[in-house]
């Protein structure tokens, strides 16, 4: 069985908001709403650190990290269990999705979600551009919406928009049930956390912090499983944490250590149309 999940390497994340913005574009997220947010763990305000500057030769305590946050696609998803009319459900591939034709707008799911991942269309949603991209289902006033792991792209064998558009290769999407997938390997090999683990929701979004992973260079916008040779850089030993850390420390390009000379850069190909 396929069980999609996401790994976010917080050590790689540069807080550029590209995932938040591309999510908004890809999914016609209404103005004033975000499905995917890049939060600053640190100071009071966005992009500010906590702690203080070094003074008089001392060592400062400035600290900041980014935490991109969207629907965690929990295995024990409270939102699915509370939905009175089965509008929110877990797909066979593990994606938690909403049937916008069924949703009665009771917002019990918003009460249930500990991550505040869901937004409600309090009025007639406004889009930019007005007509939207046409790739995703329109959501009317009075229903709840949220991240779908870009299920419309996944069904076409493409990675979610936030993953493809991450310039730091900090987002890796894949099948958690497949032991050879990058997400599975990284969860095994790196120190990963899930948000609010103590609530028992079993999120399928895992955050790497501490040691930087090699990320997953985007050789195309295809899902890992759709690539011809599963992954151009994971031929066994390459993605061991120790080695990864070595290269990441030394390299200036962010650790694409195993891409050989003529590999395609990680910018997605443009042939797929003007919609992403």
């Amino acid at each position, binding site marked *: 069985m396929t069980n999609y999940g996401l790994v976010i390497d917080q050590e790689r994340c540069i807080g550029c908001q590209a995932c938040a913005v591309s999510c908004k574009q890809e999914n016609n997220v*209404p*103005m*004033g*709403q*975000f499905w995917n*947010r890049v*939060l*600053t*763990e*640190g*100071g*009071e*305000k*966005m992009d*500010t650190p906590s702690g203080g500057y070094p003074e008089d030769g001392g060592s400062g305590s400035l600290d900041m990290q980014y*935490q991109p*946050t969207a629907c965690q696609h929990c295995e024990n998803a*409270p939102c699915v*269990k*509370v*939905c*009175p*009319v*089965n*509008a929110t459900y877990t797909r066979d591939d593990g994606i938690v999705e909403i049937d916008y034709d*069924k*949703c*009665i*707008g*009771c*917002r*019990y799911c*918003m*009460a*249930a*979600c*500990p*991550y*505040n991942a*869901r*937004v*409600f*269309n*309090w*009025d*007639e949603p*406004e889009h930019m551009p007005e007509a939207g991209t046409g790739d995703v289902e329109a959501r*009317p*006033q*009075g*229903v*709840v919406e949220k991240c779908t792991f870009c299920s419309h792209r996944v069904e076409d064998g493409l990675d979610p928009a936030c993953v493809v558009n991450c310039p730091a290769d900090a987002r890796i999407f894949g099948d958690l049930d497949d032991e050879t997938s990058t997400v599975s390997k990284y969860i095994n090999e790196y120190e990963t956390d899930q*948000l*609010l683990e103590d*609530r*028992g*929701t079993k999120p399928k979004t895992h955050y790497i912090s501490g040691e930087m992973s090699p990320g997953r260079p985007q050789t195309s916008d295809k899902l890992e499983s759709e690539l011809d040779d599963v992954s151009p850089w994971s031929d066994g030993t390459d993605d061991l944490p120790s080695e990864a850390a070595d290269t990441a420390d030394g390299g200036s390009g962010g650790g694409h250590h195993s891409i050989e000379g003529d590999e395609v850069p990680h910018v997605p190909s443009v042939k797929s149309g003007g919609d992403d």
Partner: protein
Amino acid sequence: MATNGESSRVAVPSYSGKGKLWIGLLVALMVAGLAAWGYQLTTGLIATGMRNVFSWGLYIMMFVLFVGLSAGGLIISSAPKFFHSHRYEGFARLGVLVSLACIIVAGLLILPDIGRPGRIYQFFTSPDFRSPMVWDFGIVLLYGVLNLWYLWLLTRRDLAARGSRLALGVTDTEAGRERDRTLMFWTAALALPTAVALHSVTGWIFATQIGRGDWFSPLVAPVFIAKALVSGLGLLLVVSVLADRFTNFEVDREELTSLGKILGIFLAFHVVYLLAAERLPHAWADHFEFWAITSSFLVGESVYFWLWTVVGGAVPLAMLAIPSLRKRVSVIFTASVLAVVGTMFEGIRLVFTGYEVANIDAAPGISLGGEYTGITTDIWATAGVYTPTLIEIAVTLGIIAFGALIVTLGLKYVPIQRVDAQQSYATDGGKQD
């Protein structure tokens, strides 16, 4: 006083000028409420004070209150029946009428809260039985039907004797009355567990949620039962005293005092005991010094807490505990009003504790989803704030007015009192006009 009928009496034979004015006021409130709801339907829930962080507001707070209010009447009338007692017989019919009105108000309050009320049929076509809201939907419907049936069962022979069409063809015979008494016993036997289930399930809507602070507590269901007893009985006493004063309905003074005492016991159990039981473990675990534990245990965190525990708890409890005061009708009335108001603030506080604090509150926070003006960047919030809008208040008042209208009409069309009931207190606090 008793105008006609041998065994029963209606409280209002016909509406006086004041009565018509009262009905006119209720109808005006209902029309205003409908208009406000119409406006809200066209603009969306943006017309309310709710936003993405604080996504349940006045409608749900009042839903919680009115579910609780619907407990009193049914329990006061069915508990004695279940034990074959004639105690509080004078309150039985009025109690069930008030219960019925309250559960209708509670059910209707859900309609303006949901974003797409036209799809509510999905509860029947596509229910998920894991959802506490489905359980609640079922139990509220069952409770409403049960109240309607019980009220009719209590009064149908008297309705028949009066030639009312509401008897629906039932005739007034001695054998029939005898059979009804058996039916009443069995209805009471069903009503009590249904009432317990109603309040527990409504509590579990909140108590099952791991993401909303204090909601996730096994104590919520028992607390909901306790607050239903407090507020339900409180409302029944308020309505009884008002009906005694303004209609031909007569309250048995002794029973009123006795129910006042019971309200005091309920208050003590709810606001003193259960609250202490809920707060002590947290206060103890979170603090180290004796006085830190004590103050964390005793000192509440919000104005709603104080409105509930002092205005709606300690004050009425004191009024009902002092022997020289607690027999006065005015004292019982005031204490009951305070108990209901206090319970209202308890519900408000419950919703606030769930939404005020976001579990993940890193900057910039959560997008609010409010009206997008294009200029401001202030679409973020790291904590929940909520103030109801006039639209929400108008809709809520309209629905409550509908409940009041049900009671008012019931006083005219349902023989609300058996005539063998005893004397009115009439002389003391409630001066007849």
